[in-house]
C-alpha cells in the first residue's frame, strides 16, 4: 500500500479507536493516547496530534461531548465522553470493519482456483 492510502485507512480506523477508547468512561486527550498505545502495544504508529484532531472533529459531529475538569494530577484537563450518536457510530463502524475483514480473509484463505 502506498503511504497515502495507508494514511486514509488510518484516519477511518483512528476514529474507531478513539470511540472505543471512550467506551470505558470519559478520558482526556492524553488518556486516550495512552490507552491506544497500550492496547495496540505500539504496533500502530499514530501521531498524537492526529488523535486530537479526531477528538475535536468528532465533537463537532456530535459523536462526543467535552467538559473541562481536574485531572488525577490536579491539573485542568479537557475530558471527552461518548454521546448516544457516538455509540451508534462505533457499533456501525465496528460492523463495517468486521464485514470488510471477513471479505478480505475469505479471499486470502480461498483454496479454489475458480469461484
Amino acid at each position, binding site marked *: 500500500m502506498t503511504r497515502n492510502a495507508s494514511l486514509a485507512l488510518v484516519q477511518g480506523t483512528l476514529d474507531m479507536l478513539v470511540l472505543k477508547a471512550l467506551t470505558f468512561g470519559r478520558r482526556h486527550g492524553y488518556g486516550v*493516547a495512552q490507552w491506544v498505545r497500550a492496547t495496540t502495544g505500539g504496533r500502530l504508529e499514530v501521531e498524537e496530534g492526529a488523535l*486530537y484532531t479526531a477528538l475535536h472533529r468528532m465533537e463537532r459531529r456530535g459523536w462526543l461531548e467535552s*467538559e473541562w475538569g481536574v485531572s488525577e494530577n490536579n491539573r485542568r484537563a479537557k475530558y471527552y465522553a461518548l454521546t448516544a450518536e457516538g455509540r451508534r457510530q462505533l457499533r456501525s463502524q465496528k460492523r463495517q470493519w468486521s464485514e470488510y475483514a471477513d471479505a478480505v480473509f475469505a479471499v486470502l484463505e480461498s483454496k479454489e482456483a475458480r469461484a
Partner: protein
Amino acid sequence: MRRGRSVLRMLRLRDATRDVEEELRHHFEETVRELLSRGLTEAEAGREASARFGDVAHYRRELESIDRGMARRVRLQRRREALRDVAVDAVRAVVRSRWLTVAVMATLALGLGVNATMFDIIDRLLLSPPPHVADADRLRRVHVEQWEEWARERRTRGTLSLPEFVAMTEAASLAGGAAWAEQRLTAGHGMDARPLTTVAVSGNYFDVVGARPVLGRFIEPSDDAVSAERVVVLGHAFWQSEYGGATDVLGRTLAAGSATYTIVGVAPKGMTSLRLAPVDVWVPARQVMTQQALEGWGYLTFGGVVRLRDGIDESVAAEQMTGVLRRARAEQAEGSMDDAARVILAPLLEARGPMAVAEVRVAKWLAAVAVIVLLIACINVANLLLARVIRQRREIAVRVALGVSRRRLAGQTLLEGLLLGLLGGAAALLGARWLGTAAGRILLPGVAWAEVGWSSRVVPITVLAACATGVCAAIVPAIHASGRGVANALRGAGTGAAVRTTSRFRTALALVQAALSVMLLVGAGLFVRSFAAAHSTDLGFDMRDVLYADVRYSPGTTTAAERPAILAAALERLRTHPAVEAAALAGTAPLSGTMMLNVTLPDRDSLPVIGSGYHIFQTVAGDYFELLRVRAVRGRTLRADDAWRDARVAVVNETMARALWPDADPIGACIQVRTTDCIQVVGVVPDTKQQGIRQQPAMQYFLSMRDDDGSGTLLVRPRVRGAGAADAIRAAILDTDPRIRMVEVVAARERLDPQLRAWRLGASLFTAFGLLALLVSAIGLYAVMAFDVSQRTREIGVRCALGATRARIAGLVVMRALAVAGAGIVIGAALAAALAPRLRDSLYDVHPHDAVTYAAVAVTLIAVALAAALLPANRAARVDPNIALRAD
C-alpha cells in the same frame, strides 16, 4: 446539559485559542512527566514528546479552526432559535388581542390604502412612462413658445403644424421624430353611427415609440402616403370588444370616415396615446387628414415627439431645433409669424410638461394629504400599542425579573408592529385595487385607467410603507415594553413614572394629530368654497337641460355652400318638433370655443381696448336668446326671422355698448365687420361668459346668421328631460337630409364640467381625506382620554374624597380635551396659513387666509373634541371613590 455548559464557553471565539493551548499543554506536561519517570532527561523527554505528537503548529491550527467553526454554528443556531421564539410570541400576541389587531389593521388599512391609491395615480401620471414605450427617457414632447397676437403675450403650445414639425426634425441631434393627431372618425351610419377614437400618425410613429404589436404589424413609413393602400391598426380593447379578440382579424376591412381600411395589426394591451388616452384605432395621417391640415403652416393639429440621439443633451437638441424652425419659417415668410419662436422639449408625460392641466396639481396636493393621513393613522396605532404595553406593565415586569432579556421584549413589540403593518398593508392593497381605478376615473377621465391595471411599483412601495409604518408606530411602545420603570410597576404604584411620561407623550401625539387635521380641513374648506364660488358663477345664460347637436355629413355628398341650407332645414324641423321647447343655431356653441373678429365703426379710427382687445363674436339663428334665457336690456334680441337675410343685424353686450357708445344710444348705430357694410345694432344684452367661468369682461356682439356662414352647432332645449329627448332630436335631424351621416348630441353641461372639475375634485377629495383624518384623530383623542381616565381612577378617587363634585371631575376631562383641541387649532391654523398661499393658483375667488374657512374648521374641531371627551368624562364622573381608593 454538560454539553450545553461547555458549549456556552465555546461561544467566545478568542477562548478557542486559549482552550486548545491549555489542552495541548496538559498533554505535553503529562507526556514529559511519564517520560521523566522512565528515566529520560528533560531534553530527551521533550524531544520524544514532540516526536510522538507530530507537527504541533499544524495541529494547533487545525484544532483551533475546528473549534471556531463549532462555536459559530452554535451561535447561529441560538440566534435562529431566539428569532423564532420572538416571532412566535409576536404572532401569538397579535392573535390574542383580537380587537386591538382589528383596530390597528383598520386604521392602517385606511391610511395605507389612501396612499396606495394616490401613489398609483401619481405614478401613472408623473413617474412611469406611458406603457409600451421603449427607452422613454430618450423621448421628448415638442412644444413651441411664441408671441400670440390674440393673447398679447408669449404662450407655449403643445400642438404643432405638420410642416413646422417636419422642419424641426431635420435637426441633427435627433434620432427620429413622429407626429400624431387625435381625431374622431365615424363608423356606421345614422342611428348606429358611433365615433371611433382615432389617432392619425406619421409613418414612423411606432418606430419612434418603440412598441411591438401583439398581432400582425404596425403602420410603417410606406403606409403614410396618399397613394398607399389604406391600413389601420386596432387598439387592444377595441379589438376585444368589437372582434371578440379573434386572431383571424388581419386582412378584414373596417369602414370608418369616408373610406375602408384593411386591418394589419393589433396593438398590445394597455397601449394608449402618448397623452394616456384610450385609442380605438390608429391610421396613417396622410389617409385621413385634409391637405390643408397636412400642409398648412397655420394648422396646429399635431402633437410631436422626438427621440434624442444617445449622449445628446435636451437643451442642445432644443437649440438646434429652434434654429432650424426659425430658418424654415423665414423661408416661408407667411403672415405674422413671429421669428422669435422657441422650441421647448418637455418630458414625455404631459402632466410633467408645461401643458399640465390643473387636475394634476390637485393630484399632487392630494398625494401630500394622503401622506399626512397616514401619519395621523400611524400615531393612532402607536397610541394603541403604547396603551396596551402600559396595561401589561405588571406582566412585563415579571418577565424581566424572570430573566427575559429586555432586547427580546422590545424586539417582540417591534415585530408585532411589523406584523400588524403588513396585515394592514395587505388589506390596503385589496381596497386600493378597486379604489384606484375609480379614483383615477374621477380625477382624470380622459386617461385610460382601467386598461393598464396596476402600476408595478405600487405593491412594493405599499409593502415598504406598511413595514415602516408598523415599525415606527411600535418604537415608543417597544421602549416601554423593554421594562423601564419596572420596579415601580412591581411595587404596584398606580401612577408610576412610566404612566406619567407616556401620558404626556400620548397627549402630545394627540395634539399633533389635531394640528394636522386642522391643516387638512382648512385646505378642504378653501377648495369647497372655491368650488361653491365657481359653481354659482353666473355665466349670464341658462345652460341647464340644453343639448348641443353636431352634424356630420357623409363625405363627398355636400359642398360647403350646401351645408348652411341643411342646417337651416334641420333647425326649422326642430323648432316645430313637439318635444322641443326652443331650438337655435350658433356659429360656436357657448363653452365650445370662441371666434374673435374686431368690429370697426364707420366714423371712428380707433376704438377703446378692453381686456385683450379682441371682440368675441357669435352668429346665431333661431331662438338663441330665448333658449338661453337671455333678455335684452335695451332694444330687442335676435329673432328667428332675422336669419338668412341679405342684411345682417347685430346685438351687442353691455361692455361693448358702454365702451363704444358711452354717451349715445347704441340702438340703430352701425358696426362694420370685415366689410364697410353697415350692420345695424338692434339691441343690447347683458354680458355673458362665452368662454367659461374664468372669462374676463370683453366686448362681444352677436350677428344674425346668413347663407355664407358655413358651420354651426344646433342648440336644443327639450320640453322633457331624459335620454329619450336626445334620441328624438337625433332622429329628427337625421330625417332632415339623407346626406347627414351622424349626429352627436351632448348635454351643454358636459362642456362646463371640465372647467369645474379641478375645484370639484379638490373640494370632494380634500374633504373626504380631511374628514378621514379628523375621524382618525377623534378616535385617537378618545382613546387617549379614555385610557387616561382608566389609569387615573385612584387620583380621581382622591379628588372625590377631598370634596370635588362629579361635575368638576367631568369638567377636568373636558378641559383637557379642549386644551388639546385649542393648541391643535393654533398650531394647525398657523401651518395652514403658512402653506395655503401655495394653493392660490388652484383656488377660485377665495383668499388663502379666508377667515370663514378657518373659523369653521376651528368650531368643527372643538365640537369633535367635546364629542370625543364625552364618554371618558362620563366615566370619570361615575368613579366610585370607595372602590378607586381601595384598588391597585
